[in-house]
Every structure is written in structure tokens, then in C-alpha cells.
């Protein structure tokens, strides 16, 4: 009916001008509405103007109408030539699939998988703490780990675990860095795995968990371990391990035979304390511990008297804390630990050791924890700066994860307080 009425050219022109005035649509919206003047134009032979072209438009154009398009963010690729210098701070770099799979094998990205799932390619922001850690790792080629013990501390969601991930990514790049990652610390203390008392060492051992710790080390560092030979094997080593030639074979025994895993772990760490040369270059050991907080509170395991077992009475945890305290050390290596707020536990001794609280003579603190963490260096994980927030939001907008315009980055920065976790939630929330 309506189309038949506008067949005459004069009446059609009048109707069109009236429609333009009444609807008051801008160029973009008119396109989005995709109004067609079909039959009458074709009959009259009038070529439709560019303003009447009906093209379906994506919602993104409508949402970003009248806002300048953000300058395309160059996302660097993490590869062998990735520049870790401080000049690249504030830049986003993507993680390739091979490195992502290695991180997944190590169990380093358990909590980061959900945010990474938003993007086609997971990416990380290089920050000041990243370049600080890389500086430390680069300087560690000539010194032992006794002088390179660091704890990354900060507010919940400030990026402590991500800093460890970036250290691990740096280690993947270097051919002579052996990475030992302890990521599932809560499993070692929450009484979900078998445990037994070893009379020889007077310590508690967890064979299944030990085997599960050795397996990803073997998978990720296999090539390097094949080149590291055993030497100076202690006399109290079980006979089955006396004739093993290389660390790769040693770890394979521990992975296949869970009952032998504690003995393998003990020998493995003893061997790592010695100097190893691969291709005439010393092997550097990087030990990362995520969620150190859980190792500073009593475990849920019970001794035969039904009392909670102290975490340092476990063979594995004791070894890790000895490296962190400097009692044991790698000839060339670094120990990086990060505190965590998940699961949330009260850690008065750790807070005291890190200097977060003033010394309280009446507080019931754990002396063993205080002595262990007495002289460890603390790296603070800072909130985002405004420039970092802008760079990250640009990446979110480019990846179509954030539906807001880029000029909202300051608002989101204020709302989140610069906290990385909160900033991600604010940028990606739909309300």
C-alpha cells in the first residue's frame, strides 16, 4: 500500500524528504536500519543515493559511532627474539600455542585459563615487575641461588602468579634454564593424597604427589635433562638408582614407580645442587613456587596422635623451603616464590616475615617460618599505571572483548583501583 502510493516521482520525493526530517537519522543509523526503496526507484530509474544504500552493519559500528577508532595495538609475539627489556614495558605480547601447552603441562595457568578463554590468542602485558624478574634471571648466570631468593607479594589480584608465568616464559626461551615449577601447593597440604612416615629421614613423604611433580618437569625439560649426567651419587641412595646415567632416566623411574618417587626426588635435588654443564654452558635452575602462603600454615594432615602436621615436616615442602631459606642452593639458579590469596588462609607468620605487620611479642607465630623467610628479598607486585591500563584496554577493545570505547579506560582504571583482576572484570562486564 505504502509502496504503491509513492510511484509518482513527485510524491515520492516529498515522502522521502519528510521521512528524512521525521526520522532524523544519522548516516550510520540509517544504514543499520537498512530501509529499502526498491520497486519505485527501479521503475523510475533513479539511482539510489549513497545515503539510501541498505547495508547491514555490525553492532560494533553502531556502538562505536562518533568515537574515533583506536589505533591498532601492535601485539608482539612471544618468540625466541622477544625483547624483555624495560623499553617494552606496557606492551602486550601474545603467547604461542607451544608455550601455552608447556605452561598448561606445568599447571601454571590453572586460574588464568578462564580469562584466557575470552581471547583467540592469550596474551600478557609486560610490566615493570616482568623486567625486574628478567634482570634478575639474566644476572644469575654467575651466582648461586643463595643470593637470588625472591618472594613476589602484593594485593589479591595484583598479578603475582602472572609475574611467575612471565618468568617461566623467559625460561622457555633460554636453552640452558631448567624450570622447576611448584603450582599446586594446596594439594600438598589439604590431605587429599596418600602420605606416610619415612623412618630413615624422619619425615613424611607423599609418593603420588611427588610423582605428579616430577612428571611435568620431565615433559617440559626433557631435552635438557638428557644432557645432564649424574655424578657424586650418595652412598645411601637405593641400589635401583645407583646405576642411572642421566637425570632424564632418573625422573622417568620416579614417574613410573610412585613408591620410588620420594627417593628419586631426593637424589634429583641433590644432583641439581651440583654444577652441570651443557654445551659448555652452566645450567641455570629456576625454581618457582606459586601460593607460598599455604606452606606457612599447619596442614590438614594428621600425625598418629591426631595433631596437625607442620608443613616443614614433609620431605617435599621441607626441600623447597630449604632452597628458599638458602640452606640449600643451586650453583647457578634463582628461587622465585609468590604469595597467594586463593585459597584464603590466615598467615600471621608469613605477614610478619615479609614485614607487613609490626612485630607482636604476644602473637603466636611460627618460628620455623620466620627463620626460613628471614633474609628473603621481597618484590612488590604493583597495581596498573594509567598507561598500562590504556594499553590493556586497547587490546581488549581490539579483541572485541570489551564493548566500551577506549576513552572509558580512565573510568575503568578508577573503578578497579588499578587492580589487574578487577580491571579485567570491569572491562569485560556486560552491565
Amino acid at each position, binding site marked *: 500500500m505504502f509502496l504503491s502510493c509513492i510511484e509518482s516521482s513527485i510524491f515520492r520525493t516529498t515522502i522521502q524528504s519528510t521521512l528524512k526530517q521525521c526520522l532524523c537519522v544519522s548516516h550510520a543509523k540509517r544504514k543499520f536500519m537498512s530501509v529499502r526503496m526498491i520497486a519505485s526507484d527501479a521503475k523510475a530509474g533513479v539511482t539510489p543515493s549513497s545515503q539510501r544504500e541498505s547495508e547491514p552493519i555490525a553492532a560494533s559500528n553502531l556502538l562505536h559511532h562518533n568515537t574515533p577508532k583506536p589505533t591498532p595495538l601492535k601485539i608482539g609475539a612471544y618468540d625466541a627474539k622477544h625483547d624483555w627489556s624495560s623499553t617494552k614495558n606496557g606492551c602486550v605480547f601474545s603467547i604461542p600455542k607451544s608455550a601455552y601447552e608447556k605452561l598448561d603441562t606445568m599447571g601454571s595457568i590453572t586460574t588464568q585459563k578462564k580469562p584466557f578463554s575470552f581471547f583467540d590468542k592469550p596474551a600478557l602485558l609486560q610490566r615493570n615487575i616482568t623486567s625486574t624478574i628478567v634482570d634478575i634471571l639474566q644476572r644469575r648466570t654467575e651466582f648461586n641461588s643463595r643470593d637470588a631468593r625472591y618472594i613476589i607479594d602484593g594485593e589479591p589480584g595484583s598479578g603475582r602468579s602472572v609475574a611467575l608465568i612471565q618468568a617461566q616464559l623467559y625460561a622457555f626461551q633460554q636453552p640452558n634454564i631448567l624450570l622447576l615449577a611448584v603450582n599446586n601447593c594446596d594439594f600438598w597440604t*589439604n*590431605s*587429599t*593424597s*596418600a*602420605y*606416610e*612416615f619415612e623412618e630413615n629421614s624422619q619425615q613424611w613423604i607423599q609418593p603420588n604427589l611427588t610423582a605428579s611433580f616430577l612428571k611435568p618437569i620431565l615433559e617440559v625439560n626433557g631435552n635438557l635433562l638428557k644432557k645432564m649426567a649424574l655424578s657424586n651419587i650418595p652412598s645411601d641412595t637405593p641400589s635401583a638408582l645407583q646405576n642411572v646415567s642421566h637425570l632424564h632416566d632418573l625422573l622417568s623411574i620416579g614417574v613410573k614407580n610412585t613408591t620410588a618417587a620420594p627417593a628419586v626426588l631426593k637424589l634429583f635435588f641433590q644432583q641439581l645442587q651440583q654444577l652441570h654443564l651443557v654445551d659448555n654452558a652452566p645450567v641455570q635452575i629456576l625454581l618457582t613456587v606459586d601460593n607460598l602462603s599455604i606452606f606457612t600454615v599447619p596442614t*590438614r*594432615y*594428621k*600425625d*598418629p*596422635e*591426631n595433631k596437625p602436621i607442620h608443613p616443614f615436616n614433609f620431605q617435599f615442602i621441607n626441600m623447597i623451603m630449604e632452597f628458599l631459606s638458602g640452606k640449600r642452593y643451586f650453583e647457578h639458579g634463582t628461587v622465585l616464590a609468590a604469595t597467594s590469596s586463593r585459597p584464603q588462609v590466615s598467615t600471621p607468620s608469613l605477614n610478619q616475615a615479609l614485614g607487613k605487620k609490626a612485630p607482636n611479642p604476644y602473637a603466636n607465630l611460627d618460628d620455623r617460618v620466620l627463620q626460613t623467610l628471614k633474609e628473603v628479598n621481597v618484590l612488590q607486585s604493583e597495581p596498573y599505571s594509567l598507561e598500562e591500563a590504556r594499553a590493556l584496554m586497547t587490546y581488549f577493545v581490539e579483541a572485541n572483548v570489551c564493548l566500551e570505547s577506549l576513552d572509558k579506560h580512565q573510568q575503568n582504571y578508577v573503578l578497579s583501583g588499578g587492580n589487574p583482576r578487577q580491571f579485567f572484570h570491569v572491562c569485560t562486564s556486560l552491565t
Partner: protein
Amino acid sequence: MVFLLGVSLPDHKPVKYALTSFYGIGRITAEAICARLSFHDTLKIQDLTETQLTRLSQILNGMTLESDLKRDVQKNIARYVQIRSYKGLRHSAGLPVHGQRTRTNAKTAKKLNRITRRYSTFITCAPRSAAMLLERITFPFLSILKKTG
């Protein structure tokens, strides 16, 4: 299913909760047994090895459980009744023993307190007064028979 001392333990249950199926073992005792045997919290009955089952049986055999425990409780009550103590009289009368009010409530005591104490409120039987009367009549004869062997 694992049968231990006449009680079947479901395979899917963690050991520290399955042990509470025994009469005489509650949550605390079960946790103490698991701690003594170094069983972690999520260890299930189906994951127990033969050695662990043997050690568990040894510990349970050393405890008074099930019918032995019930027999001990009965003996204690019978002793109270025999020496005509206040507690014995309250058991005989089917009234609360520990000083609770009787003007109202006391329903549980009236159902369960007997010379031969019952262990469940779900058992239905003869009216309270008739059952108690029968017990009072037969109890002295039963005790004499036991003494004479």
C-alpha cells in the same frame, strides 16, 4: 562393599565417614583412627589395600563396638537397677535419668528408657505401661537364672 566386623562399608564413601557406621564410633573417633593409620581425608573404602584393611581390622578388634558395647550398656543399667540406685529407679520407671523436667516433654526417655534399654524411637510395640509391667515381673527371674547359670 567391604564387610568388617559384621558391618558393610560402602565402597564410594571416604573411610573417615564410613567408620561412623559402626555402633560405638562417631566422627571424632573415626578421625582419630584415620590419623593413627595415616589415612588422608579423601581415601575411599575401595582404595584401601589389604595391608591397610588388616591394620584397620586390628584396631577395630581392640575396641568395644556393636553388640559388645550394647551388652556393656545393658549390664551397666542392670547394675543400677539391682543396687536400687536413683538411676536404676529412673530406668525402671522409664523416666529421664539425668535430671530433666518431666512436667512436660521427656518423650524420648519415656520411649527408650527401660531396664533393657531400647536404641531407636522407630520401634513400635505394646503400650508403655504394659511393656514395663512385663519387664518388672520377668527381670528378677531372668537375673536369678543368669546367676545360677
